[in-house]
């Protein structure tokens, strides 16, 4: 038994080394960096808490934070409704259901940056068949892009949750005379809670970290109106060459994401308790 423990530990070693070196160390390093004036070139110098106090009166940052939060709420709501709708549509085995599932999931095979370029053309006035105009075409095109690319992926995850619900539970409810809506409210949603929590967390963290779509579709414009939080981090680091400030914003964002994730963990734990 002793020997098996050693073998097990050996098999886990490569993963442990990689996780330690490229996850734990950078996690500590980003906090360390945020306490320093850390130019891209040159020696770092301790300056805490300057990077954090600067966060408070960074004009672009607050507008980016506000934009990112609005975008996150919008995307999470729309994407969840669409993905759940698709999952309900294709949950039963019927002729043609495999084709529908594949069609909805296929956009996931296209890289997100490529998909952003695709929609840049698709919604353009120059060559697009469906040019997007109106009050805020920038945000609208990002929303359409994300729905197209991620609805099928989330549908697939929700589908695994739907199919894990035993058929007899529905049978019993039907015999008791439950309506379809009651079954959805009282059986489907409660039993899917862990899956729903997982999907919502991925949507929220994914949108809070939005970068590719705005970098490619709008370049953050017009007038920085579609500049997301991660774009500000990028700009601090590689345009203003101030890695310390970028690290400070990263840490704030990390804390925010940790809160979202722990809410999800709480929801999951309540189920297993």
């Amino acid at each position: 038994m002793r020997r098996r423990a050693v073998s097990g530990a050996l098999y886990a070693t490569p993963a442990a080394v990689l996780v330690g070196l490229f996850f734990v160390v950078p996690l500590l390093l980003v906090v360390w960096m945020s306490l320093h004036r850390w130019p891209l070139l040159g020696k770092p110098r301790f300056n805490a808490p300057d990077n954090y106090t600067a966060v408070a009166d960074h004009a672009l940052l607050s507008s980016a934070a506000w934009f990112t939060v609005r975008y996150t709420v919008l995307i999470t709501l729309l994407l969840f409704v669409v993905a759940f709708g698709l999952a309900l549509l294709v949950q039963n085995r019927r002729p043609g259901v495999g084709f529908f599932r594949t069609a909805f999931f296929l956009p996931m095979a296209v890289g997100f940056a490529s998909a952003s370029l695709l929609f840049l053309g698709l919604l353009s006035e120059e060559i697009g068949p469906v040019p997007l105009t109106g009050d805020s075409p920038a945000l609208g095109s990002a929303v359409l892009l994300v729905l197209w690319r991620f609805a099928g992926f989330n549908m697939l995850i929700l589908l695994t949750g739907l199919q894990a619900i035993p058929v007899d539970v529905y049978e019993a409810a039907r015999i008791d005379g439950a309506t379809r809506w009651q079954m959805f409210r009282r059986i489907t949603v409660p039993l899917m809670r862990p899956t729903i929590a997982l999907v919502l967390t991925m949507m929220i963290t994914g949108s809070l970290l939005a970068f590719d779509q705005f970098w490619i579709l709008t370049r953050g414009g017009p007038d920085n109106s579609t500049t997301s939080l991660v774009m500000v981090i990028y700009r601090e680091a590689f345009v203003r060459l101030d890695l310390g400030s970028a690290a400070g914003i990263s840490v704030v964002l990390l804390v925010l994401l940790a809160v979202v994730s722990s809410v999800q963990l709480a929801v999951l734990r309540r189920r297993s308790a």
Partner: protein
Amino acid sequence: MSRWSYYVTGTALAILFLFPLVWSGWASVRTDTGFGAENYARLFSSANGIRAVHVLNSLIVSALTVTGTLIVATLAGYAFGRFRFPGRDVLFLLTLAILMVPYATILIALYVLLGWLGLQDSLVGLSLVLIVFQLPFSVFMMRNSFEAVPIELEESARVDGCSSFGTLVRIMLPAVRPGLVTVGLFAFLTSWSEFFAPLILLNSTGKFTAILAVVNMRTASHGSIDYAALEAGVVFMAVPCLVLFAFMQRSYVRGFTSGALKG
């Protein structure tokens, strides 16, 4: 839902989802005079377009990432699924915690760290980072795959005198094949198309991956954007992924539903 409304809704939605893909293929071969490969020619020849070296860089990064992810995740999945050892649960939770700390927030630190390790502006450095961020999904998936293999299979091998490594190679690997396919495919799709990590970690245009080069055509252009050449770039990037996906879709979806979210 009635049969009719099911088929009408499903078909209408399927057309909506497939339309952008079909359109980009069409737009990429559409020229002023009809149809042709001119957009592709411009994609590969314009000042900011892609070059063979960018495609090669992408292939190197993808090969390193897929191989590395498969090896590390298989060994770790075997360890977590079949062995008890000190620190097992902590390491497993730590690996899953990577999911909660998306890499966009620590890339700045990784940039500095890779510089210290002499891996700045390096395809190997980029691949290592991509492997790490594939690990939560891949390790979770492989652990579940190994756990699902009947214990009798393994015991009979042990009775026959197989070492634990011999058991892994001869008995377990064939049994966890769907999981391996899913993990490998996912690692390829991510590394081939990943944009943000290479944008941060690669600095010189000679090291650019293909997607960086294609996006560069859009961002480096002052004035008008060559949309048609961009769509050619989209098709060029998407076709390998779509082809692989078509071939592996069955085991991909099966691996996904049986392994990824069980337990």
